[in-house]
C-alpha cells in the first residue's frame, strides 16, 4: 500500500469533483493548482523511486477490488512507466498553464477544466495499472472526456471528428478487451507482474497469437498503426490546442505503452509470430505518414500525420523484439510526447494569431513578423525531424539500429529492408518539415489579415476584424491578403503564458537530446526484465 501512487490518480479525480465549487472565472487557476499538485506528486514519486532497481515494480499498491472477477486494484511503477507518468503530469500542467492565458473560445472554462482533470485520471491510471482489467478501465476512462473536448471545444467539423474518434477507439477497445480476456482465460490471472514474470508459459502458442492479434489491433487503433490511423488527423485537427497536445503527447503513448507492458512481455510467442507484420505496418506508416505530410495544406493536419510517421518508428522498435529496439521505442515515446506536444502548442498559437493554420493563407515571413514564435516553431520542427543533439534523434536512430539486428527468431533480411525503408522515411520527414519551414517562416511576409477559411460576407469579416476596422466592399478571402503592405495588424509575439507552457518542453528536448542516458538508464533494466536477461544481447 503506497499512498503516493494512489494519490496520483486520486488528486485529479477529487480535483474534478471539486470543480463544482469553483466559479467560472477562477476555474483555470484552479486547474493549474490541481495539476501542479499532481505534477508535484509525480516528481515526488520520481524522487523516491529507487533507480538502482528500475527493472522492478516499485511503490506497489495491491488491494482486492472485485473478488468476483479476481480483480485487484494493483498499481505500481517501474522504469518504463515512470517517465510516462511524469510526462503526463507535466503536459497536463502545461496545458492548464496555457489555458490560464488563453481561455477557450467556446467558453465554459469550468467544464473544460473538469474534463481535462478526468482525462488526467485516465492517462495516469493507465500507466500505473498492473492489473489487466484495471488497465482496461483506465484506458477507457479517457474516451468520454476526450470526446467532449473535441466535440465541444473543437473546430468547425468537431462533431464528425469526435464521433469518428470515439467509435474508432471504442472498436479498438472492444477488441483489446477480448484479447485481454483470452489471456485471462488461458493464464488464469489478471496480474501483469505475474504474467510478465512467467514469460508466456501457460498460454498455448495459438492462443498467444490470437491474443496478440486482438490486443495488437486494440492498441493499434490508439497508437495508431497504419491503416487504423484515419481517426487521428481529423481528431487532432479539430481538437482545441490543449486537446491536441494531450492527444498526441499522452493518448497515443497509451497504445504504445500497452505494447511494452502487455503485448510483448506477456505473449512472447505471439509477438515473435506477428513481429514481421508489425514491423511491416510500422514502416508503411513511416512512409505513408511522411508522404501524407508532404501533401497537407493545414499545419495542424500535417503535424497529426507526422505523428503517424513517428509512432511508426516506435512500433518498429517494438517489432525488433530486442532490448535496443524496445529502448528505442520507449525513448521515442517520450521524445514524441515532448516534441509533438510543443509543436501543437506552437501551431495552436499560430492558428490563434492568424485565424487559420492553412499553409497557403499563412504566407511566409513569419520569422520577421513573429520572431519568437517562428523560432520556436523552427526548433520544434527540427527536433521532430530528428536532428542529432535533440531528443527526436535517439528514438529513430536506435529503432533503425534495432532493426539492423533483430531478435534471433526473426528474419534478418526482412528487418534490414525495414531499416532501409525507415531510413528513407527519416529523409522524407526532414523533407516535409523543411519545406514547411521554408514556406512559413522564411520568405517575404505577405501581410495577411487574419482571414478565416471562408469569409463570404462583410458581416463575417466584421466579426474577424472587429467593429472598428474599415471594410472594403469586395474584399473577401485572399483578395484581402493580396492587398498592399501597410495593412498589417500588429500581432502579439509569444505571451508569458505561452512561454511558461512551452519552455519546459524545449528544455527537456535539449536535455534528453544531449544526455539520452538519463532516460535510457531508466528503461534499460525494465526492458531487460521483459526479455528475462541480465545483460544486453541486441
Amino acid at each position, binding site marked *: 500500500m503506497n499512498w503516493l501512487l494512489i494519490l496520483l490518480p486520486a488528486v485529479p479525480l477529487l480535483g474534478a469533483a471539486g470543480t463544482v465549487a469553483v466559479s467560472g472565472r477562477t476555474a483555470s487557476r484552479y486547474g493549474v493548482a490541481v495539476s501542479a499538485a499532481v505534477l508535484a506528486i509525480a516528481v515526488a514519486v520520481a524522487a523516491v523511486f529507487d533507480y538502482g532497481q528500475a527493472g522492478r515494480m516499485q511503490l506497489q499498491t495491491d488491494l482486492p*477490488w*472485485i*473478488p*468476483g*472477477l479476481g480483480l485487484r486494484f494493483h498499481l505500481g511503477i517501474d522504469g518504463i512507466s515512470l517517465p510516462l507518468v511524469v510526462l503526463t503530469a507535466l503536459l497536463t500542467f502545461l496545458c492548464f498553464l496555457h489555458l490560464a492565458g488563453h481561455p477557450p473560445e467556446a467558453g465554459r472554462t469550468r*467544464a473544460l477544466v473538469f474534463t481535462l482533470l*478526468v482525462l488526467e485520471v*485516465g492517462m495516469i491510471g493507465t500507466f500505473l495499472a498492473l492489473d489487466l*482489467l484495471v488497465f482496461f*478501465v*483506465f484506458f*477507457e*476512462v479517457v*474516451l*468520454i472526456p476526450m*470526446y*467532449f473536448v473535441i*466535440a*465541444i471545444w473543437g473546430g468547425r467539423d468537431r*462533431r464528425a471528428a*469526435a*464521433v469518428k474518434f*470515439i*467509435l474508432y477507439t*471504442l*472498436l479498438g477497445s*472492444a*477488441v483489446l*478487451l*477480448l484479447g485481454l*480476456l*483470452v489471456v*485471462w*482465460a488461458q493464464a488464469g490471472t489478471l496480474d501483469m507482474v505475474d504474467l510478465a514474470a512467467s514469460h508466456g508459459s501457460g498460454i498455448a502458442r495459438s492462443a498467444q497469437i490470437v491474443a496478440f492479434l486482438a490486443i495488437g489491433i486494440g492498441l493499434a487503433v490508439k497508437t495508431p498503426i497504419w491503416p487504423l490511423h484515419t481517426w487521428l488527423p481529423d481528431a487532432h485537427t479539430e481538437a482545441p490546442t490543449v486537446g491536441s497536445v494531450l492527444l498526441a503527447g499522452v493518448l497515443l503513448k497509451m497504445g504504445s505503452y500497452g505494447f511494452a507492458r502487455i503485448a510483448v512481455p506477456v505473449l512472447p510467442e505471439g509477438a515473435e509470430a506477428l513481429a514481421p507484420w508489425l514491423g511491416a505496418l510500422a514502416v508503411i506508416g513511416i512512409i505513408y505518414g511522411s508522404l501524407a505530410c508532404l501533401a497537407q495544406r493545414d499545419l495542424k493536419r500535417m503535424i497529426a500525420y507526422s505523428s503517424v510517421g513517428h509512432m511508426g518508428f516506435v512500433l518498429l522498435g517494438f517489432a525488433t523484439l530486442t532490448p535496443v529496439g524496445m529502448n528505442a521505442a520507449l525513448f521515442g515515446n517520450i521524445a514524441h510526447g515532448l516534441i509533438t506536444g510543443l509543436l501543437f502548442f506552437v501551431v495552436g498559437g499560430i492558428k490563434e494569431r492568424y485565424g487559420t493554420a492553412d499553409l497557403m493563407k499563412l504566407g511566409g515571413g513569419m520569422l520577421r513578423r513573429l520572431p519568437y514564435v517562428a523560432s520556436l516553431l523552427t526548433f520544434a520542427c527540427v527536433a521532430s525531424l530528428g536532428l542529432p543533439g535533440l531528443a527526436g534523434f535517439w528514438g529513430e536512430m536506435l529503432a533503425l539500429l534495432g532493426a539492423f539486428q533483430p531478435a534471433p527468431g526473426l528474419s534478418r533480411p526482412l528487418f534490414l529492408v525495414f531499416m532501409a525503408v525507415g531510413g528513407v522515411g527519416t529523409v522524407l520527414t526532414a523533407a516535409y518539415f523543411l519545406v514547411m519551414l521554408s514556406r512559413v517562416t522564411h520568405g517575404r511576409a505577405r501581410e495577411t489579415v487574419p482571414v478565416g477559411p471562408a469569409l463570404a460576407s462583410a458581416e463575417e469579416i466584421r466579426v474577424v476584424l472587429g467593429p472598428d476596422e474599415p471594410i472594403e466592399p469586395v474584399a473577401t478571402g485572399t483578395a484581402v491578403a493580396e492587398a498592399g503592405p501597410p495593412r498589417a495588424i500588429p500581432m502579439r509575439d509569444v505571451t508569458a503564458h505561452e512561454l511558461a507552457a512551452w519552455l519546459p518542453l524545449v528544455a527537456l528536448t535539449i536535455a534528453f537530446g544531449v544526455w539520452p542516458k538519463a532516460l535510457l538508464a531508466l528503461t534499460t533494466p525494465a526492458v531487460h526484465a521483459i526479455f528475462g536477461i541480465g545483460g544486453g544481447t541486441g
Partner: protein
Amino acid sequence: MIQSIDYTVIAVPLILALVAGLVLVLDAFLPHRPGSGRLLGLVTLGGVVAGLGVTAAQAVRGGWWQTFCVPPALPTPPPMPARMTVTLNVFINAPEELVHAGTSCSFVLDRFALIFAGLALTAGLVVVLMSMAELAGGRLPVGEWYFLLLCTLAGAVLLAASRDLIMLVVSLELVSLPVFALTAMRRYDGRASEAALKLFLVSVVSTAIMLFGVSLLYGLTGSVHLSDIATALSGGTPARLGPVPTAAFFNTGAPTGLGPVTAVATVLVLAGFAFKVAAVPFHSWAGDVYEGAPVPVAALLSVISKAAGFAGLILVLTTALAAQAAVWAPVVAVVAALTMTAGNVLALRQRRAVRVLAWSSVAQSGYILAPLAVFARVARGDVAVGASVAYLVFYAAMNLVAFGVVMLVSRARERDLLDDYRGLIFRRPAAAAALAFSLICLAGLPPGLAGLFAKVVVFRAIVDGGLGWLAVVMAVNTVIGLYYYIAWTAKLFTPAAAGEVAGRPRSLPVAAAVGVALAVTLVFSVVPQVVLAAVA
C-alpha cells in the same frame, strides 16, 4: 395429497397480493377527494417496501426454503446422475439431502429467487414512484393502476421461485396480463390502445406456443416439476412417478428415441420466452409498445417484465432442459447475436427517446442471452448463468435511471423527441448528469463502471466457453450501441436553440425514483462485488 404450506416462505407474494386487494378495496370505499390518489400510492409504496424488507430478511437468513412440496415416492428414488450435478446451476441446485429425499417442490426460495425478487421489488419501487407522477394528472383510474402494478410484481416474485411448469406459466401470465391493461389505460390516446392490442396479441401467441412446448415436455416426462423433468430427460426415471403409463411408454427411450420431440418441445419453450424478452425474431413489438405505453409502464416492461421472462427462461433451460443444452445452446447463441445486432441497428435511426430505449433494451436482451449459449461449454454452468443474472441486475439499475429522466423530461414536453434533450444540462443539471451517467453505463464505458463490468462478466463467460464469434459480434455491437448512446449524451451538453420553454414544475416522486435508481447504479459502479458475489 397433503401439502403443508410454509407461510414465511411465501410471505412476499402474499404481502403483495394482499396489498393489491387492499388498494382495490380502498379505492372503492374511500371518498374521491383530491388526496386519495396519493394515499393509494403511499399504500402501494408501503406494500412494496414491506415486500422488499421481507426479501432482505430472507436473504440475511440465507439457506434454502421450499414449500408446496409433493411427498417423496413410495420406492426409494434413484440418486441424481453424476452428469447432472456438473451442469446444474448452483442457484437452483437443491441441497443433496433434499434431492435424495425425492421431494419435488413447486415453490423454492433460494438465492436465485431472492435475487430476482429483490430486483423486481426495487424496480417496482421506482415504477411506483414514477406512477405517482403519472397519476397526478388525474386522467387515469388510480386504484386499478396500483392494483395491476402490484399483481405484476407479485407475478414476478412468484415466477423466480416457481419450480414447476404450471406455476411458471401461471406466474408468467400474472406478470403479463396486468401489463396489457396498464398499457391500455390511457384510453384517450390512440397510440396506447394500439400498443396494448399489439402487446396482447404478441403475448397471447407466445403463451400459446410456450404452452404447446410445455405440454410436450409434460407428455414426454410425465412430470411438471423441473427437477423431475431434468432427471427424466437425462435418462433416469422420474423420482416419484414410477410406472405411469405414458411415462413408461416414452421412457423406454426418452432421451434417445424421442430426441426430435424433445428438441421441438425445447425450441417451442424457447420461442415462447423469446417473445417475453423481445428477442429476435419476436422483437418487433418493442418499439411501438414502449412508445404507446405510459413511461412507467415502459419502464416496467423493460425491467420487471423482462427480468421475469429471463428468470423463466433460465429456470427452464438450465434446470429442466440442462441435458438438452446441445439443442438449445446453438439456438440461443444465434438468437443472442441477432437480437443485439437488430436492437442496436434499429436504435440508430430513432428520433424519440423512448423508442431509443426500447431498441436499446432489445439489444441489451441479446447481451443477457449471450452467456446462456455457453452454459454447457464451460466447466461450471452456473458461471454462465451468473453472468446473465449479473448483467440483468446491472442493466435494470441503469435502465431505470434513464427511464426516470425520460419521465421527467416527457412531462415537460409531450413530444419526447431526442432533440428535446438538447441543453438539458443547463436547465436541469442533476437530471442531465443522471441521464448521461446511465447512458454511459448502458454503453459500457467508464465512468459507468457498472455497465463496463457487466459487459466484462459476459465477455469472460463467452470467451471461457470458446464462442469466439459471439464475442466478436458482441464487441462490434458494443461499438454500434455506443453511437446512439453517445449521440444522445452529447445532446445533453450542447446548448439549446433559442426559444426554449422551461420545464413544468419538478416532480418529487420522479426525482425520488431517479434518486433511488441512481444510487443503486452508483453503488454497482463502485462495488460491483455486491452483485457478483450474490450470483457467484
